[in-house]
């Protein structure tokens, strides 16, 4: 994609808090209607990056262009064109569903004629018909989050930044929330959404893996799985997982071995033989099942890219 086409563009975007670098030279380009997921562990810098893109934080270096406006130079123009859901739930608990919608609609100066209709849509979108007069703090998590989304899109922003909108929400409600996201994207809204949940990454058009403030990899879930592993992934059941990792890593042809739940995942170079692996495990007195070639999950990719950056560097 050419940078000119990007609705959200970050160039060497950097944020330092004192000596600590929370976002480190982020380059990112998102096209219209794309759903891009920010994935990364706690403290990776996801929220900080989103706040930089919203103009809530001033970058220490680099720049960002959102909806055609330079965030540093025209922050107010950017604000008119974005919707944002912060990681903390941030509607007014002591106000009713309707009053919250009226408040945010007023902040964005939605014309009064349209506001009524849009509020109706937002209520429907949140599944809160008939509960317009309920105080927001009495709503359950899933409804709250969908209402917050409803408030964030009252002014029909072409770009949405959603910071962990589904955290602490039960799976069923999470799925509903993602339906809404895709519905908006199909209308041409560009969406950047951060999440902790690996399975949600699969719902994104592209995933940006963030670790320690750096963009580690970016691509579609499929391409990330194919490209980033560079080998065949085998799964095997075995005893003494800790010892098994050590033994497997010393086997020829093994790129990497890691514990995955109660199983061992071993990445082997293309065309390498698994017989030697089984022999080494046996010699270490580990009872192991037969290695099965599997399609890597994003979590596998993530573990490879994020959890072992030191190995990769020293191995390269």
């Amino acid at each position: 994609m050419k940078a000119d086409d990007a609705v959200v563009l970050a160039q060497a975007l950097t944020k330092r808090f004192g000596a600590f670098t929370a976002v480190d030279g982020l380059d990112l380009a998102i096209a219209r209607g794309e759903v891009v997921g920010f994935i990364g562990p706690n403290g990776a810098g996801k929220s900080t990056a989103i706040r930089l893109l919203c103009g809530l934080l001033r970058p220490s270096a680099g720049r960002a262009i959102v909806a055609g406006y330079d965030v540093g130079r025209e922050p107010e123009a950017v604000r008119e064109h974005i919707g944002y859901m912060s990681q903390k739930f941030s509607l007014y608990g002591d106000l009713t569903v309707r009053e919250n919608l009226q408040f945010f609609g007023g902040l964005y100066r939605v014309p009064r004629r349209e506001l009524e209709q849009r509020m109706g849509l937002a209520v429907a979108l949140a599944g809160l018909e008939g509960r317009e007069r309920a105080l927001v703090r009495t709503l359950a998590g899933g409804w709250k989050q969908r209402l917050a989304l409803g408030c964030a899109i009252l002014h029909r922003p072409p770009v949405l930044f959603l910071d962990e909108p589904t955290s602490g929400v039960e799976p069923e409600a999470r799925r509903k929330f993602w339906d809404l996201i895709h519905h908006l994207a199909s209308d041409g809204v560009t969406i950047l959404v951060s999440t902790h949940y690996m399975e949600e990454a699969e719902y994104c058009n592209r995933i940006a893996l963030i670790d320690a403030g750096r963009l580690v990899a970016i691509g579609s879930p499929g391409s990330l799985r194919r490209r980033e592993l560079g080998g065949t992934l085998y799964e095997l059941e075995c005893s003494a997982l800790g010892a098994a990792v050590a033994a497997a890593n010393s086997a020829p042809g093994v790129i990497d071995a890691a514990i995955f739940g109660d199983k061992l995942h071993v990445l082997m170079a293309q065309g390498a033989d698994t017989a030697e692996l089984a022999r080494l495990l046996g010699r270490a007195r580990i009872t192991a099942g037969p290695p099965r070639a599997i399609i890597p999950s994003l979590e596998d990719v993530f573990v490879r890219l994020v959890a072992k950056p030191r190995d990769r560097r020293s191995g390269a």
Partner: protein
Amino acid sequence: MFDRLRVMLMKELLELHRDPWAMFRLVVPLLLQLFAFGYAATFTVNHVATSVLDLDHSQESRGLISHFAATGRFDFVDFATSQADVTRDIDAGRATVAIVIHAGFARDLLNGRTGPLQVAVDGTNSNTALIALGYVGRIVARYQADRTGVTVPAAAAGASGVSVTLRERPWFNGGLEDRWFFIPGLIGTLTLIQVVSLTAFAVVREREVGTLEQIMVSPIRPIEFILGKAAPFFFIGLGEVLLITMVGEWWFHIPFLGSPLVMLLGASLFLLAALGLGLLLSTLSRTQQQAFALNFFIVNPFFILSGFAFPIAAMPAAMQWFTWINPLRYFLVVTRAVFLKGVGIAVLWPDLAVMGLLGAVLFGLSILRFRKSLD
């Protein structure tokens, strides 16, 4: 501008309306302090514990003692028999004042000489001591006048034949009631304390809860946010001014001689400054704890260095300079003048003008300092 201001206002009022403790928090502390000051805060010294030692045992000495008793200001806790008793009374804190009439008092008076009278005062509380001494002086003068049938200054000036009589006639507060001084002063003081902390907390709470971030990401302008935040507290402040004024008048019977309109104008300008101060504090604090500490740190000096209780003229120069930028100082002048003197804008305009200026500056600063950024 007005659309956003309107929704900000609506939201603030709804939140206030939904807060079941709001009324309680606004009114009860105010009334408690008002009554505490109304009843407890007084400079008047009454029922001073007094130890008496009469070594003269004459009709004259007993006459002097009865003059002391007649005023009701002095309670005799001990009729001592020796100087040592008196010393012990003062040391032990049983008596604040000791009156010692030495032997020969009557004889000296009858011979036209000055009778020896010794008064010892416990100076630990210098204020009480000074006031009690003042009473002693007046009682002795009265005694002398009663005895000779001549007023004191005239007797003293007798030789030159000039006769001067001092008649005290305090203006504006004929009975010299401390309450008349304190309660009008409380309007500004209590309102300042309330309004500054309410405003500061209102913004910081939104920051802590996270709603401020959601507001900052919207295209709202700082002035719209600040005005929307401040306006409800402005009216709350006016309500508090009204409440104290009414209690002062109907419960404590403080005269209100001036114009309610001048009072309203003064209160409005003063509230502008108080709100500006609260908003400024809120832009300086990240958490409610910080706001609390800062509030305490700032409001107390404003209170002490205002002339509410301690005269500004008696303060060191540096502190006197500080009082120039203290809006409370000016509002105290206005309230006391409106209540007790009944003067109007013709006299008070300089104070009103300075309050307006301070309000504009503080408000302007808080708008400038309110950044729509989390840095």
